[in-house]
């Protein structure tokens, strides 16, 4: 058996707010094997986004140890972190975060530019990814010319551009209507079946139910971690 993709031990994240210390993460341990598809749920302020930012290499923990794809995040230099974000992680945001002046195709090319992929290959891969998420006909559209669901598909294609081992999505359906959200979830399920490991944060228990496993957080701790019955088989 190969090493798990994510291994977190006693993760702590502290924020100093004046005299008060906020324990955004107060000792979190869990393991995510390769190929998993799990949801993190919990009330507002429970530390879900903090967790995702650490998993995505955007933030560093105050304590504990986190190993992703055999890399101990805390030991990486700035440059190694940039490469980690570029190659190992695909990040999907609630608010899409597409660059408004770039076309859909150029938005998907962006991570590959930082990965040093040559223009020809870059364009081919970006076009293939947009086709994969069902936007083959919309490649030259600007984000403002696309619906919310379409924009999130562009963002998913962009997250996949670096051929990441781990796809992270912080409330990816939060800004979408129910039906569009379902379409996005179907896309995630397909990607997961193709072998991509996915972790999503959601408030919505229906969304969580669509994944294989639910991790529940409260006050910076994991209070429940269970496989979703219908999918677990």
């Amino acid at each position, binding site marked *: 058996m190969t090493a798990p993709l994510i291994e977190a031990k006693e993760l702590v994240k502290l924020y100093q707010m004046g005299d008060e210390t906020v324990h955004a993460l107060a000792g979190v341990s869990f393991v995510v094997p390769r190929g998993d598809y799990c949801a993190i749920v919990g009330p507002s302020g429970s530390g879900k986004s903090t967790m995702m*930012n650490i998993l*995505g290499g*955007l*933030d560093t923990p105050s304590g504990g140890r986190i190993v992703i794809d055999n890399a101990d995040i805390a030991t990486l230099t*700035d*440059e190694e972190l*940039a*490469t980690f*974000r*570029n*190659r190992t992680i695909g*990040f999907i*945001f609630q608010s899409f*975060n597409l*660059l408004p*002046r770039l076309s859909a195709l150029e938005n998907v090319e*962006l*991570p590959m*530019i*930082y*990965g*040093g992929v*040559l*223009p020809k290959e870059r364009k081919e891969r970006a076009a293939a990814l947009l086709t994969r998420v069902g936007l083959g006909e919309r490649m030259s559209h600007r984000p403002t010319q696309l619906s919310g669901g379409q924009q999130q598909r562009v963002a998913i294609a*962009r997250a996949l551009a*670096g051929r990441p081992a781990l796809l992270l999505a912080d409330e990816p359906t939060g800004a979408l209507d129910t039906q569009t959200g379902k379409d996005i979830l179907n896309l995630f399920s397909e990607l997961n079946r193709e072998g991509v490991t996915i972790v999503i944060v959601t408030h919505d228990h229906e969304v969580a139910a669509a994944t294989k496993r639910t991790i529940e957080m409260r006050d910076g701790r994991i209070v429940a971690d269970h496989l979703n019955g219908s999918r677990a088989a």
Partner: protein
Amino acid sequence: MMRTADLVASASRALRSNPLRSALTALGVIIGVGSVVAMVALGSGAQAQVERSIASLGSNLLIVVPGAQASGGVRMAQGGGGRDTLTLDDVEAIAGLEGVLAVAPSQRGNAQLVANGVNWNTRIEGVTPSYMLARDWEVAQGRFFDESEERQARRVVVLGATVARELFPNVDPIGQAMRISGGSYEVIGVLESKGQSGFGMDQDDVVLAPLTTVKRRISGRFRRADTVSQISVKAASEGELNRLQEDVENLLRDRHRIRPGDEDDFTVQNLSSITETAAATTQVFTYLLGGISAVSLLVGGIGIMNIMLVSVTERTREIGLRKALGARQSDILHQFGLEAVTLSLAGGIVGLALGVAGAWGMTSLFNLPLVIAPQNALMAIGFSGLVGVVFGAYPAWRAAKLDPIEALRRE
């Protein structure tokens, strides 16, 4: 790691996305570089003009005039004034010194010329043929008088270009007769034009006549027959000029029996040192103009810094996103740095073009030569690039150091 081509494409895209802002930002550098280029060119033109016009008085030249040096300043060869202390024997003696190419005595006077019913008041110089060599004159038309004509005090004259033009606008002056102080003279030649001297004097407004003629009939009538108002001494080479000046001074002091410590009764003026002083003065002037203009370049640089800081603030979220997608600090640093340098370099190139055009306009307005050294043009471009680097560095650094989470949270 970002490829250079992608970096350039990214920076130029950002600049083109807001063309008016980019143009206005570059305008500061355009004005700065443009005014530096124009002002330095103007100053260099003035300098070249001063050097050229002083040089036109004669090269490697010492001018000896009667009377002591006016204290605290350089007095130009006016001659005439003071006591008559310079004699033809002095001239002979100077001719015997080592390193002398030509010695030319001259007697200056003013004369009323009349020809074809036209009156013209001008300067008349009584000279010997060696004056031509000593003072770098050339005959444009006709001929100069020779030694024997000079000795015989013939009534012949050679006209400066201005005089020839004023008195004989439509006829060939050669062979024409004219009256000077009541006597009749024949025009035998016209001098090549020299233009204005560095002191605003029209050098072509002159008539040259044999020294003896002038002494006897025009200006020296009431003076001793063997004195002159000026001696021009041309050195064989520039390197000998200072040594020759000392030799002439020692010789004349000796001949005039001036004891050590006593004031000289003559002054030896060294034109090359006058040229140097004048050139140095105009050079200071050039630096001053350039320096003042450089301040506007500085202001242009601050404009770039200002806009780049605004741009970093506006694009904070974009920077955060780029970092989340794998941009390194160096990628962000290079992109913003390149934007600043592109702005200032473009401004520098346009500014250079406008500066050259401005210099051309001003120099033709003031009738100065247009002097633009290629290395100055390159320096202007290089300097504008440097302005971009210096003033773009801080905003780019700020962008590179942004925390991606903070940046992404910003709206």
